[in-house]
């Protein structure tokens, strides 16, 4: 007979050993979080959508809520053609592929979505990953290995940093959007070393755009390859919606564009497009591509349909920009501080004084029926607390008015505006 205490997974037995508890490193953060929750605040990181009525409305805590904190920029999640394509694929190909892209997980739908991407970007090669996170992780770590250099913006997305760590590349940071700072670092690196400069079109915390028209030619002068993450610009920057690099006229100098299906496309998945023929070989050596199951048939079908519709979404694009500009001006006129002087993208960041004000403002907005994202360091740069608003092409002009009224009420109630 075994005593219960002798079971190998019984924590009671481990208590006699004196090794350090692996959870200990989170103690300061846990305490900070508990203090916040003890003050009676609703947990900003535990929102549940009980019902989703449209790209812009959901029911949260039993209340009708306008969504202003999704990345559903083009409002494609409820597009009838997109839904129909997904249902059809579900019926014809089943609920999942149960396999890697390089084994049994490539269906005709995966080829079709890669074809749609090639046409959307007018590029020769497209590689679809299960998420955008994995696309950055995979492409960066596979291209830049030990002894190669990745030069990245300090405000880069976590998936970019993680790609550097996974590949064990030499990683060099430059100050956010600072051309001179990038130039100095490029000059100091060994000439003969392999180099990958990683930039984003739109930086998602402050909603500011990168001076790609200066940075990309600079990187090329120093013999670097250039990867641009256009996650937050697809569909509404540039004449064909290809992103900030297209809008600034430098897309022909970009080696790799990384994107995601989880924002403008309205489903889940990630991709890399490129004109380099050797990109195809990466399928065999890129671990986050190879060692994971491919996207379900319904997901690639919705993505392909959505991408093709985004090629001709001029009206939606125009309305999204109009929404962003109106909300930016309205918030400014109310006395809020915004991260950018003008609306540079579909993301507007409202800057607040400290954590307490940010959380109280966030909660007041939610109680009025508005959902925005709360963001805090270290996700945000320079220790700022902010409320991130992201607009959707499906927000009506009336909804923008409602949003402004809710900001005004919440701002006065919390003292964020006078």
């Amino acid at each position, binding site marked *: 007979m075994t005593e219960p205490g002798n079971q190998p997974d019984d924590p009671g037995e481990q208590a006699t050993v004196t090794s350090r508890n692996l959870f200990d490193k989170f103690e300061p953060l846990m305490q900070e979080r508990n203090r916040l929750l003890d003050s009676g605040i609703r947990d900003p990181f535990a929102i549940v959508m009980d019902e989703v009525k449209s790209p812009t409305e959901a029911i949260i805590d039993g209340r009708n809520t306008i969504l202003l904190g999704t990345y559903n920029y083009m409002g494609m999640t409820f597009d009838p053609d997109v839904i129909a394509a997904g249902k059809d694929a579900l019926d014809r190909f089943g609920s999942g592929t149960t396999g890697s892209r390089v084994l049994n997980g490539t269906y005709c739908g995966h080829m079709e979505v890669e074809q749609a991407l090639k046409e959307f970007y007018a590029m020769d090669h497209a590689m679809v990953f299960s998420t955008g996170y994995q696309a950055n992780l995979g492409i960066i770590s596979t291209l830049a290995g030990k002894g190669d*250099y990745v030069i990245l913006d*300090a405000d880069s997305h976590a998936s970019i940093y993680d790609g*550097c760590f996974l590949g*064990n590349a*030499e*990683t*060099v*940071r430059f*100050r956010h959007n600072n051309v001179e*700072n990038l130039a*100095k*670092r490029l000059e*100091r*690196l060994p000439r003969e070393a392999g180099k990958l400069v990683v930039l984003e079109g739109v930086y998602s915390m402050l909603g500011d755009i990168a001076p790609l028209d200066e940075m990309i030619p600079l990187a090329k002068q120093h013999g670097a390859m250039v990867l641009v993450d256009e996650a937050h610009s697809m569909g509404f920057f540039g004449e064909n919606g290809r992103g900030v690099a297209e809008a600034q006229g430098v897309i022909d100098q970009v080696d790799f564009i990384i994107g995601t299906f989880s924002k403008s496309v309205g489903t889940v998945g990630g991709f890399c497009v490129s004109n380099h023929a050797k990109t195809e070989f990466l399928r065999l050596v890129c671990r986050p591509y190879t060692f994971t199951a491919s996207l379900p048939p319904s997901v690639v079908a919705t993505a392909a349909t959505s991408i093709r519709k985004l090629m001709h979404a001029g009206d939606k694009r125009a309305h999204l920009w109009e929404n962003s500009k109106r909300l930016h001006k309205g918030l400014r006129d109310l006395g809020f501080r915004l991260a950018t002087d003008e609306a540079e993208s579909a993301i507007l960041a409202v800057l607040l004084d400290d954590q307490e004000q940010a959380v109280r403002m966030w909660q007041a907005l939610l109680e009025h029926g508005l959902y925005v994202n709360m963001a805090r*360091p*270290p996700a945000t*740069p*320079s*220790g700022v607390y902010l409320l991130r608003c992201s607009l959707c092409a499906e927000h009506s002009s009336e909804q923008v008015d409602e949003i402004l009224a809710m900001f005004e009420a919440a701002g006065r109630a919390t003292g964020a505006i006078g």
Partner: protein
Amino acid sequence: MNETRANAFEEVKSQIEPFNQKGVPITEETSFQDDLEWDSLTVMDFVAAVEDEFDIVITMNQQAEIETVGQLVDAVQELRA
């Protein structure tokens, strides 16, 4: 300690001063995390300042290995060589 090494220490020390808000005494053994208690943003600004002062690049990989002022002085000397 030879003279160039002593000079390098003084140069690094003067780079630390503007970021040393708590006025911690700086020695070879001073730890950036435990004694100066810098957060990641301060570290980032400080590294940029040191890189520009000495015209070097300290990769994130190298930064991860540097815990004390003395180790930074060693790294700066090596990178300048």
